[in-house]
């Protein structure tokens, strides 16, 4: 099977990439795909695309990124934020993608509540699945 990738000025700097940039405050094109974020991500094993791949899809203006579970597997621990040599806070990009998915009516990660969950867990998780 072959994959065709079309690179064009029409998709680069596309409205979708600009929207993600606006919401996250992070320039997706600052990323040069070194993969350091993915190498250090504690949750990458549970993602259907690695953090650097998520950012690549944003660079390419590919809105299918909103259907991935990767943003929902991110715990916003910021290990990537302190390590990125280009100063991109990918946790913010992940948050922007969660927000865009929620605002587009896509289903968020489901809450699985237990009676012994402390408030701090409930408020934190609820905030991540609501917009």
């Amino acid at each position: 099977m072959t994959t065709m990738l079309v690179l064009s000025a029409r998709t680069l700097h596309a409205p979708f990439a600009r929207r993600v940039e606006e919401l996250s405050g992070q320039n997706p094109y600052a990323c040069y795909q070194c993969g350091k974020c993915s190498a250090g991500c504690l949750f990458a094993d549970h993602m259907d695309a690695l953090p650097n791949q998520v950012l690549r899809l944003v660079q390419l203006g590919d809105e299918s990124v909103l259907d991935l579970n990767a943003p929902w597997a991110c715990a916003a621990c910021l290990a990537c934020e302190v390590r990125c040599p280009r100063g991109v806070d990918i946790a913010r990009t992940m948050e922007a993608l969660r927000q865009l998915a929620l605002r587009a009516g896509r289903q968020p990660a489901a809450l699985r509540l237990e009676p012994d969950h402390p408030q701090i867990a409930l408020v934190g998780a609820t905030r991540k699945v609501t917009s």
Partner: protein
Amino acid sequence: MSAAPTRIAYFPGCAMKDQARPYEEGALAALAALGVEVLELPRWNCCGTVYSLSQDDLMRHVGPVRNLVRAQTMGEPRLLTLCAMCYATLARSERFVREPERLARINAFMDDEPDYLGGVRVVHLLELLRDEIGFQALAAKTVRSLDGLRVAPYYGCTLLRPRAIGVDDPDMPTVMEDLAAALGATPVPFAERGECCGSFLTATSPEVVQERTGRILASARAAGAELIVTSCPLCQYNLGAHRPPAMPETPMVYLGELLAWALIEGACVPEPLRSLPAADACMGASA
């Protein structure tokens, strides 16, 4: 390292009045013994627990900013937190509203409150102890030693990241190890001490938190930890509730419990410490 600070406003947050009550009791008793006057905000609300990472939802900064307004109304320039998550949320929102346009919009929204004028400094307990009281002064105030107990501090995320508000170097933190040493413990830095426990994923993906917890606890055990100390109620919950069934339990206490034990004459030995050999020795020495 100079004279002890006299007073500081204090934001407890939900956990300190509930599952982390021993943290608050211990920390407040220890601060009183160190001569710090701690003034709890007369009214406070949830900090939001997780800092909003997107640029357009100013609504989520209203909670933290309301708490800053309360400190400002008291005339206090600083606001103390014990909880690591409250610390990060309040400290980050305080920085977020340094931009005048954002602050103006939030003040306009909160028209039932006095305007927040900016400038309240959010301080974590560890910063207060290290930067104002000093660990040498702290060591001089101990009434019993931890007697070489192998104490492994677990930092988690929000004390260290992002770098702009972290209380120490996110890659190589030492503040809690230095504190443990000042109290007479043998600090045990372990590889996973700054790695995330899974945080709020506990309410969406508990299996991920269990995997993380297993790795963190295994790392502490491999380093020879006899006791784990945390300053985050959510870390403490996750490490306790999601310990893999086959893994033996490592006792775990909040930072405040450790302080009270070392600084307060006749303080109750925290439950997790009672079975340790060092606990008996120290109790005997203080009796």
